[in-house]
């Protein structure tokens, strides 16, 4: 285990104290000049960028940034028993190709890929280790994506400070069958975490990565800025799923980006359950012809949770297909915002691009906002978007009641049914069942 690399990190830095953060960032620096420069630049950007306000079109409908960064801090690793509890609970899936568990940014457990995959050149390593062992491999890809959807300030802080997470590198033609699982836990009160996932899939390779974000206690205050970057090489198959189940006292930002090259197949799937306010940005760039990308999301919003989702499907090359389906179910006084944009560049002819947002209002006080968008600059395209917001259909309910199913059960079945088409995208039964249970546990119909 690369614990030696972590010992020189400072034990604590408050997000409200710039001097402490600068010292912390400097403690991260080492022998890799390009990375040090990148982090320094990001820090400057973080300091100079203003806090977003609702007047910014990219933050339309979002609630005020009413949190105090000084309440959050970067911490040392938790004690052994806490660590062990997290490791034991990292059990969404058993048939895996590799597993990493992080607690409060610190690596707690690491099951590497088997020797066969290792021999083929597969790299599945904690970021801190990968930075030192494969700096050249990741130079052009690590922290390389900009946040176009509004979270540039938060992503800059992430870039300056992030060291937890994984590098996944799959060489040409290598196919990894079972998923690689990465668990991120928050365990200490007020902890700030910066999980990063970097997936580089070379030509005709295939890989499946799952990130699970969880808190050890349901009411643990925490702060997170996560980022996930996928580079899908020509003809590759890259699947990434995220299950965000932070405590309901967590402020969460996540900025993901996928770059899809020629004839690649990519899929991102986000299950959003936790957090007090959770902002999820997902951008897709289809840079070469023939790629096929799907983007799914499933959100259960309850209490006074706010889920703010911003997506961007950028068709920069012809003959690419993208399809987005974001589904939200809203309970209590919760809020959701979906803002999606499809952009088709002037030369991206024969584009097929779709975007669908479905909101199911299960409470009269819930608030669903939808901003679906199209910007089309090529003419030979098939593009559409659709957004619907409504309640459970009373006629469907009557039909079920007529079969003798009690009202509560019928409503539950309909709500669970609402999510099934997204849950179906979890190929492995074990994780699908576990996620389904997790989703269903959020309901108190």
């Amino acid at each position: 285990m690369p614990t030696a690399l972590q010992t020189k990190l400072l034990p604590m830095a408050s997000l409200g104290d710039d001097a402490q953060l600068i010292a912390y960032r400097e403690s991260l620096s080492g022998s890799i000049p390009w990375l040090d420069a990148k982090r320094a630049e990001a820090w400057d950007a973080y300091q100079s960028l203003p806090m977003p306000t609702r007047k910014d079109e990219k933050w339309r409908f979002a609630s005020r940034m009413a949190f105090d960064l000084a309440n959050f801090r970067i911490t040392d690793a938790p004690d052994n028993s806490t660590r062990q509890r997290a490791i034991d609970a990292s059990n969404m899936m058993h048939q895996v190709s590799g597993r990493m568990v992080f607690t409060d940014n610190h690596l707690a457990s690491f099951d590497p890929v088997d020797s066969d995959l290792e021999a083929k050149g597969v790299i599945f390593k904690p970021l801190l280790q990968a930075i030192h062992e494969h700096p050249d491999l990741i130079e052009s890809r690590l922290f390389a994506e900009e946040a176009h959807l509004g979270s540039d300030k938060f992503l800059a802080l992430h870039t300056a400070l992030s060291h937890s997470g994984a590098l996944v590198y799959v060489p040409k033609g290598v196919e990894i069958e079972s998923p690689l699982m990465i668990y991120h836990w928050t365990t200490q009160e007020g902890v700030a975490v910066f999980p990063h996932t970097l997936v580089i899939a070379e030509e005709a390779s295939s890989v499946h990565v799952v990130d699970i974000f969880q808190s050890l206690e349901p009411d643990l205050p925490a702060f997170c800025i996560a980022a996930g970057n996928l580079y899908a090489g020509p003809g590759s198959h890259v699947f990434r799923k995220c299950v965000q189940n932070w405590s309901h006292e967590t402020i969460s930002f996540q900025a993901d980006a996928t770059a899809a090259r020629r004839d690649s197949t990519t899929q991102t799937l986000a299950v959003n359950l936790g957090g007090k306010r959770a902002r999820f940005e997902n951008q897709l760039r289809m840079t070469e012809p023939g790629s096929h990308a799907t983007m799914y999301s499933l959100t259960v919003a309850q209490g006074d949770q706010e889920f703010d989702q911003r997506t961007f499907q950028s068709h920069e090359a012809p003959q690419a297909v993208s399809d987005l389906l974001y589904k939200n179910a809203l309970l209590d006084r919760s809020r959701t915002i979906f803002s999606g944009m499809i952009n088709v560049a002037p030369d991206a002819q024969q584009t097929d691009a779709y975007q669908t947002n479905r909101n199911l209002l299960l409470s009269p006080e819930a608030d669903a906002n939808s901003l679906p968008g199209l910007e089309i600059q090529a003419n030979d395209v098939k593009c559409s978007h659709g957004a619907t917001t409504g309640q459970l259909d009373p006629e469907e309910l009557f039909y079920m009641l007529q079969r003798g199913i009690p009202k509560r059960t019928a409503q539950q079945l309909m709500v669970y049914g609402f999510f099934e088409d997204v849950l179906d995208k979890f190929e492995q039964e074990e994780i699908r069942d576990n996620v389904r249970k997790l989703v269903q546990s959020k309901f108190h119909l």
Partner: protein
Amino acid sequence: MANQLEIRNLNVTIGDKPILKDFSLSIPKGEVHALMGPNGTGKSTLAKVIAGHEDYTVQSGEVLVDGVNIIGMEPDEIARSGVFLAFQYPLEIPGVSIANFVRAALQARMEEGETFNAPAYYRSLYEKMDLLQIDRKFTARSVNEGFSGGEKKRCEILQMAMLDPKYCIMDETDSGLDIDALKIVANGVNLMRSPDRAFLVITHYQRLLDYIIPDKVHVMWDGRIVQSGNKDLALELESKGYNWVKEELATA
């Protein structure tokens, strides 16, 4: 009276508009009654009112299931009391598989403490699916979603067979069926005929009654039954058309 479905002097409105006017009908267990009539005379309203649909207002009258008035009961209570409605337009329930749906309906009928016998359930489900010539793969498909008209109607009969009701109301089950599908559906129904069960078959056409032979035929007009008879009445109606009923009424 027990052992029958009895509708007594039922008056029903939608908004202010009267639909059923002093409607009365009794169907004893063991019998199949057909209710015929032109569109818009209140046949489907009757079916939905019995099932407890909230769009309709019962001004007066009773619907007695084995002597118990079900008016005012919740739709699921009515269903569990033994009334099954095969819908004219079955609803699609996205994301809910047929297997889970029927299972939930059966579980709702179980006594407290009773455990669900899954293997027996699947045996029974598959057996009935085979009979109705429904592909077994359909169990994993969402209820009615993407089904053809004929598949939807067969799925209704499948549910009817699985839930074992005492009183079956079939609302225009024949509409949209080709002759082969019609035969399959009729066969399924005929196998369910028993001294412990009664059927009310609502239809616009006589064709279905060639395959499900009714004990009695009633003709409905303007919210009430205007004529009753045996299966020959259906044939007479078919040859003379509904205008004949109108004229009969006019001269009566």
